[in-house]
């Protein structure tokens, strides 16, 4: 299937140059809160990707019949319905992860990535481009989550996906986990550093 340039741009842009977390500064709340461990971060990334893609498609389908004045409420209802479905599915098949995500799952509704993309893209573009834009933004969000969670779980508890990766002899020789990494504050500082790296790399390319 040959994709037009615009469709490709809608998908690839958010992965790097127009990343929702690093550049547009959207969806920060959940990006920071669920990244203590890798597993909830992965589940959260996937859930958000699915919800952004589907809600983009739905809103793009009905965009011509939405009255301008009440569009925000309509978008919110579409998103809330999708989030309810995802949260019920997670409660049925991955109960422990759903409990770990707790309120942050429900907070996908007010995740600014969703409202931002619906307002800025799905309201004015066709269904195919909106789907790609949703997927791109979802993955752009997910990879940041995974990177932050990887660092925090590895340094904070010496584990990845709940399995110990730092061997016992390291601990015997005096290595200890960095408890700081488990605190909420370190998530902020890590994201700050990722933004720093991302910007300095992209600035160099631009020159």
């Amino acid at each position: 299937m040959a994709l037009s340039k615009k469709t490709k741009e809608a998908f690839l842009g958010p992965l790097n140059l127009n990343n929702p977390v690093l550049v547009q500064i959207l969806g920060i709340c959940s990006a920071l809160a669920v990244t203590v461990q890798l597993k909830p971060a992965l589940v959260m990334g996937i859930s958000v990707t699915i919800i952004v893609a589907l809600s983009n498609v739905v809103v793009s389908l009905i965009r011509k019949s939405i009255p301008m004045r009440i569009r925000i409420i309509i978008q919110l209802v579409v998103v809330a319905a999708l989030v309810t479905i995802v949260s019920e599915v997670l409660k049925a098949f991955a109960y422990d992860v759903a409990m770990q995500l707790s309120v942050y799952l429900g907070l996908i509704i007010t995740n600014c990535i969703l409202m931002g993309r619906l307002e800025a893209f799905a309201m004015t573009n066709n269904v195919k481009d909106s789907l790609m834009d949703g997927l791109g933004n979802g993955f752009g969000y997910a990879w940041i989550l995974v990177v932050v969670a990887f660092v925090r779980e590895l340094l904070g508890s010496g584990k990845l996906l709940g399995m110990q990766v730092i061997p016992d002899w390291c601990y015997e020789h005096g290595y200890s986990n960095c408890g700081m990494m488990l605190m909420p504050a370190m998530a902020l500082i890590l994201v700050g550093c990722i933004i720093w790296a991302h910007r300095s790399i992209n600035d160099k390319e631009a020159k």
Partner: protein
Amino acid sequence: MEHAISLFVRSIFADNMIFAFFLGMCSYLAVSKDVKTAAGLGVAVIFVETITLPINYLLQVYVLSPLNLGYLSFILFIAVIAAIVQLVEMVVEKFSPSLYNSLGIFLPLIAVNCAIMGASLFMQQRVMLDPENVKAIANIGDAFAFAIGSGIGWFLAIVALAGIREKMEYNDVPKPLQGIGITFITVGLMALAFMCFSGLNI
């Protein structure tokens, strides 16, 4: 009464919406460039929080849980919040144009502020707790205390960050870190400072 006061103080400091739960981060980072606008948004958040949370509490206790409709809570809560924000906007516009001019632009933003929705979802979890628990919300008074406390906590956080950012204008920050990068790190350090409240109990 004692319980409500403890809940109020805890929700300002120990369970601060920004530093403990990262709620309302998007507008927190976007609107904290100067103290005046930050204070405007903060007041609007306190206002909307104080109205929506008790309403959602009543809905949760008298409608959703007796009828076993818990799975509808997301849609119901967000609809209440969006409707109340719309209503507040219209009422304020009619009766106090000066307040409307200072709050006006922020009100629509608040419908999608996670601090508001998040507080309602926390309330939903806390209603089920044992009444002896310091975090429990057992009656409407507790709901009010929690709502006002969370709002004030958010207000304090955004005004503090705006103050720091105003001062930071004069600092020599590495170029790629300027703007949003250094803001993240600042908030991280502020969150560390706020952690000293975490054992707070009355």
